């Protein structure tokens, strides 16, 4: 293997093997990013970088390349630009990769994207010219060879590219082999879907270890019982364990009169659940870091840092 080149803080930390934390930002259907920028500022002291989503669930939001650029500049936080293959063809995406670099973006997370049929503009044409693996391959071709289809790029982009994995997927073997393809395409890091099932996660991560791609585990600390319940109900394929739901419900009722105490109890409960979970996986040497997908919950980051540092 050739020596790993470094284009971003994320790339540098991964190359050094530092255990890292990344966050997630979800710009909305708006042209004003001040809320997201504030959230980015709040998490900036803790995370090495934050993902900026690309119209999740097919619900249209401000363009993720523009949002990534603005957030990176205004909040002074490195971003991981989520780029789906849903809306733009290969030619358009190649242009965006150059454009993204020119705007200062240095990390891409390659995603398929939720189908247009699911969202609020279902009349749109679903493009899917590339898929998440061939997008990884395209980025690597442009970065490593400085050319597209053999045509030279005058000033080629320099970005890292990662991809997603889903430890909850069933059949798991199909998902594992798919990660193999992404690795072959040149994927430099993986962020997983949210997990709660430790045994399953261990099995999955142990299997994909052979592909030697640094892995950031997706977690979703739950800010409230409503959040936990909502996540359990509305996120397909991921269920929040019953004992967690019961515990969170208990916090909601026990501290209904004291919001401050309630917040502290939720934060503590998250700490108590995720600490052994993460520690166990780290002990087994399966993780390069944590990707925290809880949006609008920056208060949890100091607690997560405690877990990471311990």
């Amino acid at each position, binding site marked *: 293997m050739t020596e790993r080149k470094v284009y971003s803080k994320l790339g540098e930390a991964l190359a050094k093997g530092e255990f890292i934390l990344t966050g997630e930002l979800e710009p909305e259907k708006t042209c004003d990013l001040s809320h997201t920028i504030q959230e980015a500022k709040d998490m900036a002291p803790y995370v090495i970088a934050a993902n900026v989503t690309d119209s999740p669930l097919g619900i249209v939001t401000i363009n993720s390349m523009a949002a990534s650029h603005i957030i990176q500049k205004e909040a002074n936080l490195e971003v991981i630009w989520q780029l789906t293959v*849903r809306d733009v063809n*290969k030619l358009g995406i190649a242009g965006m990769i150059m454009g993204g670099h020119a705007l200062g973006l240095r990390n891409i997370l390659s*995603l*398929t994207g*939720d*189908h247009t*049929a*699911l969202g609020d503009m279902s009349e749109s044409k*679903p493009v*899917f*010219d*590339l*898929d*998440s*693996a*061939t997008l990884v*391959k395209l980025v690597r071709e442009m970065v490593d060879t400085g050319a597209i289809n053999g045509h030279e790029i005058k000033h080629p982009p320099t970005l890292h590219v990662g991809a*997603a994995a*889903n430890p909850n*997927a*069933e*059949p798991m*073997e*199909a*998902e594992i*082999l*798919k990660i*193999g*393809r992404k690795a*072959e*395409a040149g994927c430099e890091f993986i962020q997983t*879907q949210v997990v709660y099932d430790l045994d399953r996660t261990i099995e999955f991560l142990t299997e994909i270890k052979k592909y030697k791609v640094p892995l950031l585990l997706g977690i979703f600390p739950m800010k409230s019982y409503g959040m936990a319940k909502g996540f359990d109900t509305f996120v*397909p*394929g991921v269920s929040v364990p019953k004992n967690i739901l019961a515990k969170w419900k208990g916090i909601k009722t026990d501290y209904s009169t004291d919001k401050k105490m309630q917040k502290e109890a939720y934060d503590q409960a998250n700490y108590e659940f995720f600490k052994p979970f993460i520690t166990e996986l780290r002990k087994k040497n399966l993780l390069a870091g944590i990707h925290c997908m809880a949006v609008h919950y920056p208060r949890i980051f100091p607690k997560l840092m405690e877990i990471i540092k311990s």
Partner: protein
Amino acid sequence: MVVITTKKPTEEVIEALENYKIKKLAIVSCGTCAALCQTGGTEGAKEWNDLLIEKGYEITAVIVSEDVCDNRVMKKDLRKIDDEIQESDAILTASCGLGAQSIVKVLENKYPEKPVLVSNNTKFIGMTERIGRFYMRCRACGDCYLNYTGGICPIATCAKGLMNGPCGGMVDGKCEVGNYEKDCGWVLIFNRLKAIDRLDLFSRLRDARDWSESGHQQEVVFR
């Protein structure tokens, strides 16, 4: 192989006839694919005939042709009702979109002024399970992958037509599109390749589709 069609809403067809100010028309119905889909054939032709007469239209001729989409057959069949065509304001087809265009083509020199209208929506190239159950299993992509995907088409059975699935939208073998009721095409491919002991093919990283030839008008001309 069948070109699968469904009927347009009657009002939409009537609106088109009114829009073209049609009073007299000939009906050409397909006796093959559209007959199977119950959007053409003898019954479809009779249905349109009765309905349009009831609505005050004059029907000059009704024919059921075995190959509306074949210019040669259409030329022959339309010649038989040439007088009726001549006095018609338009031709209504109970076939697929190919059938309608075949008629446009055949009549383009003799009757360039006659509109040819459609009564069906053409859906896809379908596989027949039984009458009334048709499934899109090929999108005629022009470069068949079936030898590498266990005989299951990734383009037609995957909602996103992905070359490297399954995507993150798969839950327990089902697809995110359509409320997790349809099978994920890539899980079908996985199961099939596993059954024939060719998961090596599943593991392979496939390139994106090459649209350079198929992204525009297509023809096969060999003589």
